[in-house]
């Protein structure tokens, strides 16, 4: 599982950071940073929730 963010869509709402702070961090510069691009399978439910709840639908999961 690889976490993919479309930065053309991302508006730094930080909802993903609220769902999965191990993976997503919006910093004081208001940009999103991916802390763990290839998280373990145990985190899949959290990543899927972040995908669903992202207000700008900027996150997706690539299986590679």
């Amino acid at each position, binding site marked *: 599982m690889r976490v993919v963010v479309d930065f053309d869509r991302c*508006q*730094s709402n930080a*909802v993903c*950071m609220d769902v999965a702070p191990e993976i997503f*961090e*919006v910093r004081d510069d208001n940009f999103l940073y991916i802390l763990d691009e290839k998280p373990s399978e145990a985190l899949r439910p959290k990543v899927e929730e972040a995908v*669903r*709840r992202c*207000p700008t*639908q900027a996150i997706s999961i690539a299986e590679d």
Partner: protein
Amino acid sequence: MASAAPPGRVVVVGASLAGLSALETLRQEGFEGELIAVGAETTLPYDRPPLSKQVLQGHWEPDKIVLREPGQYDALGVTWHLGRRATGLDVSARTVTLDDGEPLAYDGLVIATGATPRRMPGTSELAGIHVLRTLDECLALRQELESASRVCVVGAGFIGAEVAASARVRGLDVTVLEALPSPLARAFPAEMGAACAALHLDQGVDLRCGVTVAGFEGEGRVSGVRLGDGSVVEADVVVVGIGVVPETGWLESSGLPLENGVVCDSTCATAAPGVVAAGDIARWPNNLFGETMRVEHWSNAVEQGTAAAKRLLAGPGDAVDFTPVPYFWSDQYDAKIQFLGRCCPTDEVRIVDGSIEERRFVALFGRDGRLFGALAFNRPRLLMAYRKLLAAKTSFEDAVAHAQGS
């Protein structure tokens, strides 16, 4: 996986975000029966927030606001009735009637028909007066903005503010008319409205608060907006953003209790067996805040669609309260506005980070000694920390202390 025996056929009326969320949740929870979705628009569910921003500004085309790829829609196994409206509901026969007269039987029903823009009298006879809710409305407005020079927006709520910002970004002269003394005065303390107003004044918008609209000028096509004092704001295009009304017309003869929306219990169930509601149309008691609410925002459509679908599959003893912390955001110019929780004009306000002058701040709202809401301008990282505090019913004092410690 739900333990209760799943119903055989679920009908979802309303094919936008809440309806899609319900459909996806039903499948994720293991529902293998028939899924039917009814949508008044001719398109598969799409994302509405960009309509007043990227699409209206001309940065995005409609293909960029699809909510799912075709393969994802195929995998859901839904029969879509698009371009069709529900016209009636019989809760004892368990049928929904569509606009071609065909009754559609259901075992479970999700009501997710959303809301529709409130219109002003005298606006249907003149061309050039718009509302913005659907993709078609967005494209019609965008086309007119391409040749317009002066736009008048009626209503300084979030949709009006976003349209005004997008029109300014396009280089048009923009006047915004607001009946209340400041923007958002019905929802927020006055200084928050002033902060929103400042964003537009910074950008050269002619924002006029405390004014009434008496009518519209023009023959065949609008040429201006006539105010209560008799003066006229000249405009090539008018956009009316004065709120929405829940789309409950088709339910009026159903016997379902309606009260500015479909009345639900704390678990998103309506008074009729096998019928739940979600999204802009649903009014339910949110026990986290001790308040009955109807929430017209994107995140609620996702979360309530999920909750309503689970409620449909759950046995009566398994129903859980839907107790979200409401969230919304608005992007205007370079400003990101975000809000969590609840707010009313009389709440106590504390700015705990930044300042209104900097256009960068976090404001906390307190009621009865408890943290009720948090608003941020250009402070996404700081804001999100308050969701957990709101969910935990943190006292206002502790929330302020948290802010000072962070």
